[in-house]
Protein backbone atom coordinates (compact mmCIF):
# COMPACT_ATOMS: atom_id res chain seq x y z
CA UNK A 1 0.00 0.00 0.00
CA UNK A 2 1.34 3.47 -0.87
CA UNK A 3 2.09 5.79 2.07
CA UNK A 4 -0.94 7.74 3.28
CA UNK A 5 -0.31 11.29 2.17
CA UNK A 6 3.01 10.34 0.59
CA UNK A 7 2.04 12.17 -2.58
CA UNK A 8 0.20 15.41 -3.27
CA UNK A 9 -1.45 17.47 -5.96
CA UNK A 10 0.66 20.62 -6.37
CA UNK A 11 -0.93 21.99 -9.52
CA UNK A 12 -4.49 22.00 -10.80
CA UNK A 13 -6.32 23.80 -13.58
CA UNK A 14 -9.58 23.46 -15.40
CA UNK A 15 -11.01 24.89 -18.60
CA UNK A 16 -14.78 24.97 -18.28
CA UNK A 17 -17.18 27.78 -19.04
CA UNK A 18 -20.88 28.52 -18.76
CA UNK A 19 -21.46 28.25 -22.49
CA UNK A 20 -20.21 24.68 -22.47
CA UNK A 21 -18.23 25.46 -25.62
CA UNK A 22 -14.53 26.00 -26.34
CA UNK A 23 -14.78 26.08 -30.15
CA UNK A 24 -11.28 27.44 -30.73
CA UNK A 25 -9.49 24.35 -29.41
CA UNK A 26 -9.22 20.79 -30.68
CA UNK A 27 -9.11 17.89 -28.28
CA UNK A 28 -5.31 17.97 -28.32
CA UNK A 29 -5.38 21.71 -27.82
CA UNK A 30 -7.59 21.23 -24.77
CA UNK A 31 -5.35 18.52 -23.31
CA UNK A 32 -2.29 20.71 -23.77
CA UNK A 33 -3.98 23.90 -22.58
CA UNK A 34 -5.08 22.32 -19.33
CA UNK A 35 -1.65 20.73 -18.79
CA UNK A 36 0.12 24.07 -19.28
CA UNK A 37 -2.30 25.85 -16.95
CA UNK A 38 -1.78 23.21 -14.24
CA UNK A 39 2.01 23.46 -14.66
CA UNK A 40 1.76 27.25 -14.37
CA UNK A 41 -0.27 26.80 -11.18
CA UNK A 42 2.59 24.65 -9.84
CA UNK A 43 5.23 27.11 -11.02
CA UNK A 44 6.83 24.67 -13.48
CA UNK A 45 6.97 23.96 -17.20
CA UNK A 46 6.91 20.92 -19.48
CA UNK A 47 10.66 20.31 -19.01
CA UNK A 48 10.11 19.87 -15.27
CA UNK A 49 7.66 17.02 -15.73
CA UNK A 50 8.94 13.44 -16.13
CA UNK A 51 5.65 11.57 -16.27
CA UNK A 52 2.46 11.88 -18.28
CA UNK A 53 -1.00 10.35 -18.13
CA UNK A 54 -3.98 10.94 -20.38
CA UNK A 55 -6.71 9.12 -22.25
CA UNK A 56 -5.73 8.81 -25.88
CA UNK A 57 -2.12 9.01 -26.89
CA UNK A 58 0.32 10.16 -24.19
CA UNK A 59 3.07 10.42 -26.81
CA UNK A 60 1.05 12.94 -28.79
CA UNK A 61 0.41 15.11 -25.75
CA UNK A 62 3.95 14.84 -24.32
CA UNK A 63 5.53 15.71 -27.65
CA UNK A 64 3.06 18.53 -28.33
CA UNK A 65 3.80 20.03 -24.91
CA UNK A 66 7.53 19.88 -25.61
CA UNK A 67 8.31 17.56 -22.73
CA UNK A 68 11.58 15.68 -22.77
CA UNK A 69 10.89 11.95 -23.25
CA UNK A 70 9.33 11.05 -19.89
CA UNK A 71 10.26 8.09 -17.69
CA UNK A 72 6.63 7.28 -16.93
CA UNK A 73 3.70 6.95 -19.36
CA UNK A 74 0.07 5.98 -18.65
CA UNK A 75 -2.63 5.80 -21.32
CA UNK A 76 -5.21 3.94 -19.25
CA UNK A 77 -8.56 4.32 -20.97
CA UNK A 78 -11.55 2.88 -19.13
CA UNK A 79 -14.02 5.71 -19.69
CA UNK A 80 -14.79 8.72 -17.54
CA UNK A 81 -13.04 7.51 -14.39
CA UNK A 82 -9.74 6.99 -16.23
CA UNK A 83 -8.33 10.08 -14.50
CA UNK A 84 -8.89 8.59 -11.06
CA UNK A 85 -6.91 5.59 -12.25
CA UNK A 86 -4.24 7.91 -13.67
CA UNK A 87 -3.92 9.56 -10.26
CA UNK A 88 -3.75 6.18 -8.55
CA UNK A 89 -1.06 4.92 -10.89
CA UNK A 90 0.86 8.19 -10.51
CA UNK A 91 0.85 7.74 -6.74
CA UNK A 92 2.28 4.24 -7.10
CA UNK A 93 4.83 5.37 -9.69
CA UNK A 94 6.12 8.24 -7.55
CA UNK A 95 6.31 5.99 -4.48
CA UNK A 96 8.23 3.42 -6.54
CA UNK A 97 10.61 6.02 -7.94
CA UNK A 98 9.49 5.69 -11.55
CA UNK A 99 8.97 9.43 -11.86
CA UNK A 100 9.13 12.56 -9.73
CA UNK A 101 6.53 14.91 -11.21
CA UNK A 102 3.57 13.63 -13.20
CA UNK A 103 0.98 15.53 -15.21
CA UNK A 104 -2.47 13.96 -15.56
CA UNK A 105 -4.35 15.80 -18.27
CA UNK A 106 -7.74 15.65 -19.93
CA UNK A 107 -9.29 17.57 -22.77
CA UNK A 108 -12.42 16.72 -24.65
CA UNK A 109 -14.22 18.49 -27.44
CA UNK A 110 -17.49 16.78 -26.54
CA UNK A 111 -19.72 19.54 -27.87
CA UNK A 112 -17.71 21.04 -30.71
CA UNK A 113 -16.31 17.65 -31.78
CA UNK A 114 -12.98 19.06 -32.93
CA UNK A 115 -10.14 16.61 -33.43
CA UNK A 116 -12.07 13.98 -31.55
CA UNK A 117 -11.61 10.33 -32.41
CA UNK A 118 -14.94 8.58 -32.81
CA UNK A 119 -16.11 5.68 -30.74
CA UNK A 120 -14.40 2.64 -32.21
CA UNK A 121 -15.70 -0.83 -32.67
CA UNK A 122 -17.26 -2.53 -35.65
CA UNK A 123 -20.00 -5.11 -35.86
CA UNK A 124 -17.64 -7.83 -34.70
CA UNK A 125 -17.22 -6.36 -31.21
CA UNK A 126 -18.89 -8.04 -28.26
CA UNK A 127 -20.91 -4.93 -27.51
CA UNK A 128 -22.29 -4.77 -31.06
CA UNK A 129 -23.15 -8.47 -31.14
CA UNK A 130 -24.76 -8.74 -27.74
CA UNK A 131 -26.23 -5.29 -27.05
CA UNK A 132 -26.00 -3.04 -30.12
CA UNK A 133 -28.72 -4.75 -32.16
CA UNK A 134 -31.49 -4.20 -29.62
CA UNK A 135 -32.01 -0.52 -30.46
CA UNK A 136 -29.64 1.22 -28.08
CA UNK A 137 -28.55 4.77 -28.88
CA UNK A 138 -25.63 5.47 -26.58
CA UNK A 139 -25.38 5.99 -22.84
CA UNK A 140 -28.82 7.56 -22.16
CA UNK A 141 -30.49 4.34 -23.31
CA UNK A 142 -27.89 1.96 -21.84
CA UNK A 143 -26.43 3.26 -18.60
CA UNK A 144 -30.02 3.58 -17.39
CA UNK A 145 -31.09 -0.01 -18.03
CA UNK A 146 -30.35 -1.40 -14.53
CA UNK A 147 -32.35 1.23 -12.67
CA UNK A 148 -35.86 -0.28 -12.92
CA UNK A 149 -34.50 -3.31 -11.08
CA UNK A 150 -32.95 -1.10 -8.37
CA UNK A 151 -36.23 0.80 -8.01
CA UNK A 152 -38.26 -2.37 -7.63
CA UNK A 153 -35.91 -3.93 -5.08
CA UNK A 154 -35.41 -0.82 -2.95
CA UNK A 155 -38.60 1.22 -3.35
CA UNK A 156 -36.64 4.07 -4.93
CA UNK A 157 -38.95 6.29 -7.00
CA UNK A 158 -38.79 8.60 -10.01
CA UNK A 159 -39.18 11.46 -7.50
CA UNK A 160 -35.94 10.32 -5.84
CA UNK A 161 -34.15 10.38 -9.18
CA UNK A 162 -35.53 13.86 -9.78
CA UNK A 163 -34.34 14.99 -6.34
CA UNK A 164 -30.75 14.24 -7.38
CA UNK A 165 -31.04 16.70 -10.27
CA UNK A 166 -32.73 19.31 -8.07
CA UNK A 167 -30.04 19.22 -5.36
CA UNK A 168 -27.24 19.47 -7.88
CA UNK A 169 -28.88 22.36 -9.69
CA UNK A 170 -28.94 24.18 -6.38
CA UNK A 171 -25.15 23.78 -6.12
CA UNK A 172 -24.75 24.81 -9.77
CA UNK A 173 -26.60 28.03 -9.04
CA UNK A 174 -23.60 29.09 -6.93
CA UNK A 175 -21.09 28.31 -9.67
CA UNK A 176 -20.53 30.96 -12.38
CA UNK A 177 -19.00 28.34 -14.72
CA UNK A 178 -21.97 25.97 -14.56
CA UNK A 179 -23.90 25.59 -17.80
CA UNK A 180 -27.29 25.15 -16.08
CA UNK A 181 -27.91 27.49 -13.13
CA UNK A 182 -31.64 28.21 -12.93
CA UNK A 183 -33.33 26.50 -9.96
CA UNK A 184 -35.55 23.52 -10.78
CA UNK A 185 -38.17 21.51 -8.89
CA UNK A 186 -38.96 17.80 -8.79
CA UNK A 187 -41.97 18.55 -10.99
CA UNK A 188 -39.77 20.33 -13.52
CA UNK A 189 -37.61 17.22 -13.78
CA UNK A 190 -40.57 14.83 -14.00
CA UNK A 191 -42.18 16.98 -16.70
CA UNK A 192 -39.04 17.28 -18.81
CA UNK A 193 -38.84 15.39 -22.09
CA UNK A 194 -38.76 11.58 -21.89
CA UNK A 195 -35.43 10.21 -23.11
CA UNK A 196 -35.55 6.55 -22.10
CA UNK A 197 -38.26 5.69 -19.58
CA UNK A 198 -37.91 6.22 -16.66
CA UNK A 199 -35.20 8.74 -17.50
CA UNK A 200 -36.12 12.27 -18.51
CA UNK A 201 -33.96 15.01 -19.96
CA UNK A 202 -33.07 16.67 -16.65
CA UNK A 203 -31.89 13.34 -15.23
CA UNK A 204 -29.25 13.14 -17.98
CA UNK A 205 -25.88 14.86 -18.17
CA UNK A 206 -24.89 17.79 -20.34
CA UNK A 207 -22.70 17.56 -23.43
CA UNK A 208 -19.91 20.14 -23.36
CA UNK A 209 -16.31 20.93 -24.20
CA UNK A 210 -13.86 20.98 -21.31
CA UNK A 211 -10.40 20.22 -19.98
CA UNK A 212 -8.52 19.82 -16.75
CA UNK A 213 -5.13 18.72 -15.47
CA UNK A 214 -3.34 17.87 -12.24
CA UNK A 215 0.34 17.89 -11.27
CA UNK A 216 1.31 15.21 -8.78
CA UNK A 217 4.57 14.84 -6.88
CA UNK A 218 5.86 13.41 -3.59
CA UNK A 219 4.71 15.05 -0.37
CA UNK A 220 8.33 15.79 0.51
CA UNK A 221 8.87 17.70 -2.75
CA UNK A 222 5.45 19.36 -2.48
CA UNK A 223 6.88 21.83 0.05
CA UNK A 224 8.95 23.40 -2.72
CA UNK A 225 5.91 24.30 -4.83
CA UNK A 226 3.99 27.57 -4.48
CA UNK A 227 0.59 25.96 -3.95
CA UNK A 228 -0.93 24.47 -0.81
CA UNK A 229 -0.47 20.71 -1.22
CA UNK A 230 -3.56 18.56 -1.53
CA UNK A 231 -2.42 15.24 -0.10
CA UNK A 232 -3.57 11.93 -1.53
CA UNK A 233 -4.51 9.63 1.34
CA UNK A 234 -5.85 6.61 -0.48
CA UNK A 235 -6.89 5.35 -3.89
CA UNK A 236 -8.93 2.55 -5.43
CA UNK A 237 -9.78 1.19 -8.86
CA UNK A 238 -11.62 -1.69 -10.48
CA UNK A 239 -13.50 -2.92 -13.53
CA UNK A 240 -16.55 -5.16 -13.83
CA UNK A 241 -17.98 -5.64 -17.32
CA UNK A 242 -17.97 -3.82 -20.68
CA UNK A 243 -21.66 -4.65 -21.14
CA UNK A 244 -24.24 -3.28 -18.74
CA UNK A 245 -26.48 -6.32 -19.31
CA UNK A 246 -23.74 -8.52 -17.90
CA UNK A 247 -23.50 -6.87 -14.47
CA UNK A 248 -23.54 -9.58 -11.85
CA UNK A 249 -26.22 -7.64 -9.96
CA UNK A 250 -28.07 -4.81 -11.72
CA UNK A 251 -28.61 -3.07 -8.39
CA UNK A 252 -24.97 -2.91 -7.28
CA UNK A 253 -21.76 -1.95 -9.06
CA UNK A 254 -19.09 -4.57 -8.51
CA UNK A 255 -16.43 -2.04 -9.55
CA UNK A 256 -17.73 0.63 -7.12
CA UNK A 257 -17.64 -1.94 -4.33
CA UNK A 258 -13.95 -2.60 -4.87
CA UNK A 259 -12.65 0.88 -5.71
CA UNK A 260 -14.50 2.89 -3.04
CA UNK A 261 -13.84 0.75 0.05
CA UNK A 262 -10.20 0.18 -1.00
CA UNK A 263 -9.57 3.93 -1.30
CA UNK A 264 -11.17 4.62 2.05
CA UNK A 265 -9.41 1.81 3.91
CA UNK A 266 -6.03 2.72 2.37
CA UNK A 267 -6.72 6.30 3.49
CA UNK A 268 -7.49 5.10 7.01
CA UNK A 269 -10.79 6.98 7.10
CA UNK A 270 -14.39 6.12 7.92
CA UNK A 271 -17.52 7.59 6.38
CA UNK A 272 -17.96 10.14 9.13
CA UNK A 273 -14.51 11.60 8.37
CA UNK A 274 -15.67 12.63 4.89
CA UNK A 275 -16.52 16.35 4.68
CA UNK A 276 -17.04 16.51 0.95
CA UNK A 277 -18.01 13.97 -1.67
CA UNK A 278 -18.02 13.82 -5.45
CA UNK A 279 -19.81 10.94 -7.19
CA UNK A 280 -19.63 10.98 -10.98
CA UNK A 281 -23.16 11.68 -12.19
CA UNK A 282 -23.59 10.97 -15.87
CA UNK A 283 -27.19 10.15 -14.96
CA UNK A 284 -29.27 10.75 -11.85
CA UNK A 285 -29.02 7.20 -10.53
CA UNK A 286 -25.23 7.25 -10.16
CA UNK A 287 -25.07 9.27 -6.93
CA UNK A 288 -27.71 6.86 -5.58
CA UNK A 289 -25.70 3.77 -6.49
CA UNK A 290 -22.50 5.47 -5.32
CA UNK A 291 -23.80 6.47 -1.90
CA UNK A 292 -24.99 2.92 -1.31
CA UNK A 293 -22.08 1.00 -2.86
CA UNK A 294 -19.53 3.12 -0.97
CA UNK A 295 -21.44 2.52 2.25
CA UNK A 296 -22.45 6.11 3.05
CA UNK A 297 -26.05 4.88 3.45
CA UNK A 298 -27.76 1.52 3.82
CA UNK A 299 -29.67 -0.50 1.26
CA UNK A 300 -32.26 1.60 -0.54
CA UNK A 301 -31.61 4.68 1.62
CA UNK A 302 -29.77 6.83 -0.95
CA UNK A 303 -32.83 8.23 -2.75
CA UNK A 304 -34.60 9.30 0.47
CA UNK A 305 -31.25 10.59 1.83
CA UNK A 306 -30.85 12.94 -1.14
CA UNK A 307 -34.54 13.89 -1.25
CA UNK A 308 -34.33 14.87 2.44
CA UNK A 309 -31.71 17.49 1.58
CA UNK A 310 -28.64 15.86 3.11
CA UNK A 311 -26.49 16.49 0.04
CA UNK A 312 -27.72 19.99 -0.89
CA UNK A 313 -26.06 23.23 0.24
CA UNK A 314 -26.10 23.23 4.03
CA UNK A 315 -26.70 19.48 4.20
CA UNK A 316 -24.55 17.14 6.27
CA UNK A 317 -22.87 15.48 3.28
CA UNK A 318 -22.19 18.03 0.51
CA UNK A 319 -22.27 16.09 -2.76
CA UNK A 320 -21.34 17.17 -6.29
CA UNK A 321 -20.85 20.76 -5.24
CA UNK A 322 -19.85 22.02 -8.69
CA UNK A 323 -23.30 21.04 -9.97
CA UNK A 324 -22.04 17.77 -11.43
CA UNK A 325 -22.38 16.31 -14.88
CA UNK A 326 -26.09 17.10 -14.72
CA UNK A 327 -25.68 20.89 -14.34
CA UNK A 328 -22.00 21.96 -14.39
CA UNK A 329 -20.22 20.32 -17.30
CA UNK A 330 -19.87 16.90 -18.93
CA UNK A 331 -17.57 16.61 -21.92
CA UNK A 332 -18.00 12.83 -22.19
CA UNK A 333 -15.43 11.73 -19.63
CA UNK A 334 -16.27 13.69 -16.49
CA UNK A 335 -13.94 12.21 -13.87
CA UNK A 336 -11.32 14.96 -14.18
CA UNK A 337 -13.91 17.63 -13.28
CA UNK A 338 -14.88 15.71 -10.14
CA UNK A 339 -11.19 15.57 -9.16
CA UNK A 340 -10.80 19.29 -9.85
CA UNK A 341 -13.73 20.15 -7.59
CA UNK A 342 -12.33 17.93 -4.81
CA UNK A 343 -8.97 19.71 -5.08
CA UNK A 344 -10.64 23.14 -5.01
CA UNK A 345 -12.71 22.21 -1.97
CA UNK A 346 -9.63 20.97 -0.10
CA UNK A 347 -7.70 24.10 -1.09
CA UNK A 348 -10.65 26.26 -0.05
CA UNK A 349 -11.05 27.88 -3.47
CA UNK A 350 -14.32 26.40 -4.79
CA UNK A 351 -17.13 28.56 -6.15
CA UNK A 352 -19.54 26.94 -3.70
CA UNK A 353 -17.01 26.40 -0.94
CA UNK A 354 -17.94 24.01 1.88
CA UNK A 355 -16.49 25.20 5.23
CA UNK A 356 -13.48 23.35 6.68
CA UNK A 357 -13.01 20.51 4.19
CA UNK A 358 -10.36 18.19 5.60
CA UNK A 359 -11.20 14.97 3.78
CA UNK A 360 -12.72 14.87 0.29
CA UNK A 361 -13.64 11.72 -1.63
CA UNK A 362 -13.84 11.72 -5.42
CA UNK A 363 -15.53 8.69 -6.92
CA UNK A 364 -15.74 7.98 -10.63
CA UNK A 365 -17.45 5.61 -13.01
CA UNK A 366 -16.26 4.59 -16.46
CA UNK A 367 -18.27 3.18 -19.33
CA UNK A 368 -21.63 1.92 -18.15
CA UNK A 369 -20.79 0.48 -14.74
CA UNK A 370 -17.71 -0.87 -16.56
CA UNK A 371 -15.00 0.68 -14.40
CA UNK A 372 -14.47 2.73 -11.29
CA UNK A 373 -11.81 4.80 -9.55
CA UNK A 374 -11.81 6.55 -6.18
CA UNK A 375 -9.38 9.09 -4.68
CA UNK A 376 -9.30 10.39 -1.10
CA UNK A 377 -7.75 13.86 -0.68
CA UNK A 378 -6.85 15.83 2.43
CA UNK A 379 -5.35 19.18 3.38
CA UNK A 380 -3.33 17.41 6.10
CA UNK A 381 -0.52 14.90 5.82
CA UNK A 382 -1.12 12.08 8.30
Amino acid at each position, binding site marked *: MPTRGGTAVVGAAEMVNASGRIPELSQLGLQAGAAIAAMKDAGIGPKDVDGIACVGNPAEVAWYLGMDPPSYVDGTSVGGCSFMLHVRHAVAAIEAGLAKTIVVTHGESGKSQLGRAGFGGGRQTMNAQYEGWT*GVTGPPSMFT*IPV*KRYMKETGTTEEHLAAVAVAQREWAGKNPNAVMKDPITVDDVLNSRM*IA*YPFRLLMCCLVTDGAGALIITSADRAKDFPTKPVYILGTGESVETPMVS*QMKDLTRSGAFRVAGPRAMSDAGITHKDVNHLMIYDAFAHLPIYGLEDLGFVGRGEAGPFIAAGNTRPGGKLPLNTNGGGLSYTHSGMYGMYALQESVRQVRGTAAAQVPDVKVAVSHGVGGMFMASGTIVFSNERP
Partner: protein
Amino acid sequence: MLQRSKKSGQAYFPPRPFFPGDPSQEVEWFQASGKATLLSYVINNRPPPGFEGPVGLCVVKLAEGPTMLTNITDCEQTPEALILDMALELAPHTVNEEVTLPLFRPAKGG
Protein backbone atom coordinates in the same frame (compact mmCIF):
# COMPACT_ATOMS: atom_id res chain seq x y z
CA MET B 1 -28.12 -22.67 -27.60
CA LEU B 2 -25.99 -21.80 -24.60
CA GLN B 3 -22.67 -23.00 -23.30
CA ARG B 4 -21.95 -24.63 -19.95
CA SER B 5 -19.22 -26.30 -17.96
CA LYS B 6 -19.19 -30.06 -18.41
CA LYS B 7 -18.04 -30.38 -14.81
CA SER B 8 -20.54 -28.21 -12.95
CA GLY B 9 -23.23 -27.73 -15.59
CA GLN B 10 -23.08 -23.99 -14.95
CA ALA B 11 -24.21 -22.02 -18.01
CA TYR B 12 -22.59 -18.77 -19.16
CA PHE B 13 -23.10 -16.04 -21.75
CA PRO B 14 -21.87 -14.56 -24.09
CA PRO B 15 -20.23 -17.65 -25.61
CA ARG B 16 -16.47 -18.18 -25.60
CA PRO B 17 -14.27 -21.23 -26.07
CA PHE B 18 -13.49 -21.59 -22.34
CA PHE B 19 -15.23 -21.44 -18.97
CA PRO B 20 -14.96 -17.92 -17.48
CA GLY B 21 -12.76 -17.95 -14.39
CA ASP B 22 -11.57 -21.54 -14.83
CA PRO B 23 -10.37 -22.30 -18.37
CA SER B 24 -9.40 -25.83 -17.28
CA GLN B 25 -13.04 -26.87 -17.22
CA GLU B 26 -14.30 -28.43 -20.45
CA VAL B 27 -17.30 -26.70 -21.98
CA GLU B 28 -20.12 -27.77 -24.27
CA TRP B 29 -23.08 -26.32 -26.14
CA PHE B 30 -26.56 -27.36 -25.07
CA GLN B 31 -30.14 -26.62 -26.03
CA ALA B 32 -31.48 -23.91 -23.70
CA SER B 33 -35.07 -23.94 -22.46
CA GLY B 34 -35.92 -20.59 -24.03
CA LYS B 35 -37.51 -19.54 -20.75
CA ALA B 36 -36.65 -16.25 -19.07
CA THR B 37 -37.96 -13.49 -16.83
CA LEU B 38 -37.77 -9.70 -17.24
CA LEU B 39 -35.08 -8.29 -14.96
CA SER B 40 -34.94 -4.60 -15.96
CA TYR B 41 -35.43 -2.27 -18.90
CA VAL B 42 -35.63 1.24 -20.28
CA ILE B 43 -37.88 2.33 -23.13
CA ASN B 44 -35.73 4.16 -25.65
CA ASN B 45 -37.86 7.01 -26.99
CA ARG B 46 -35.64 7.60 -30.00
CA PRO B 47 -34.27 4.28 -31.23
CA PRO B 48 -32.06 4.08 -34.32
CA PRO B 49 -33.43 3.67 -37.87
CA GLY B 50 -35.16 0.33 -38.39
CA PHE B 51 -37.24 0.49 -35.22
CA GLU B 52 -40.83 1.69 -35.24
CA GLY B 53 -41.49 3.93 -32.26
CA PRO B 54 -40.15 3.55 -28.73
CA VAL B 55 -38.46 0.24 -27.99
CA GLY B 56 -37.88 -1.52 -24.70
CA LEU B 57 -34.25 -2.46 -24.10
CA CYS B 58 -34.71 -5.39 -21.79
CA VAL B 59 -32.34 -7.38 -19.62
CA VAL B 60 -33.79 -10.85 -19.24
CA LYS B 61 -32.65 -13.56 -16.87
CA LEU B 62 -32.53 -16.89 -18.63
CA ALA B 63 -33.85 -19.91 -16.72
CA GLU B 64 -30.33 -21.35 -16.99
CA GLY B 65 -28.88 -18.36 -15.08
CA PRO B 66 -27.17 -15.93 -17.48
CA THR B 67 -28.61 -12.52 -18.35
CA MET B 68 -28.84 -10.96 -21.80
CA LEU B 69 -30.07 -7.78 -23.47
CA THR B 70 -32.94 -8.25 -25.91
CA ASN B 71 -36.31 -6.88 -27.06
CA ILE B 72 -39.73 -8.18 -25.99
CA THR B 73 -41.94 -8.73 -29.02
CA ASP B 74 -45.73 -9.27 -29.13
CA CYS B 75 -45.97 -6.77 -26.29
CA GLU B 76 -46.68 -3.06 -26.06
CA GLN B 77 -43.52 -1.10 -25.31
CA THR B 78 -44.99 0.66 -22.29
CA PRO B 79 -44.39 0.61 -18.53
CA GLU B 80 -47.88 -0.87 -18.13
CA ALA B 81 -47.11 -3.85 -20.38
CA LEU B 82 -43.46 -4.44 -19.49
CA ILE B 83 -43.75 -5.80 -15.96
CA LEU B 84 -40.62 -6.74 -14.06
CA ASP B 85 -40.29 -10.47 -13.38
CA MET B 86 -42.91 -11.36 -16.03
CA ALA B 87 -42.41 -14.80 -17.60
CA LEU B 88 -40.96 -14.78 -21.12
CA GLU B 89 -40.22 -17.28 -23.85
CA LEU B 90 -37.83 -17.22 -26.78
CA ALA B 91 -39.28 -15.78 -30.01
CA PRO B 92 -36.56 -16.18 -32.65
CA HIS B 93 -36.67 -13.46 -35.30
CA THR B 94 -35.15 -14.32 -38.66
CA VAL B 95 -33.44 -11.31 -40.23
CA ASN B 96 -31.79 -13.12 -43.15
CA GLU B 97 -30.17 -16.47 -43.95
CA GLU B 98 -27.27 -15.78 -41.64
CA VAL B 99 -28.79 -13.82 -38.79
CA THR B 100 -31.56 -14.83 -36.39
CA LEU B 101 -32.09 -12.59 -33.37
CA PRO B 102 -33.00 -14.06 -29.97
CA LEU B 103 -36.07 -11.95 -29.15
CA PHE B 104 -38.44 -12.90 -26.34
CA ARG B 105 -42.21 -12.58 -25.90
CA PRO B 106 -44.56 -12.86 -22.94
CA ALA B 107 -44.91 -16.56 -22.08
CA LYS B 108 -48.13 -18.16 -23.34
CA GLY B 109 -50.33 -19.32 -20.50
CA GLY B 110 -48.42 -17.28 -17.88
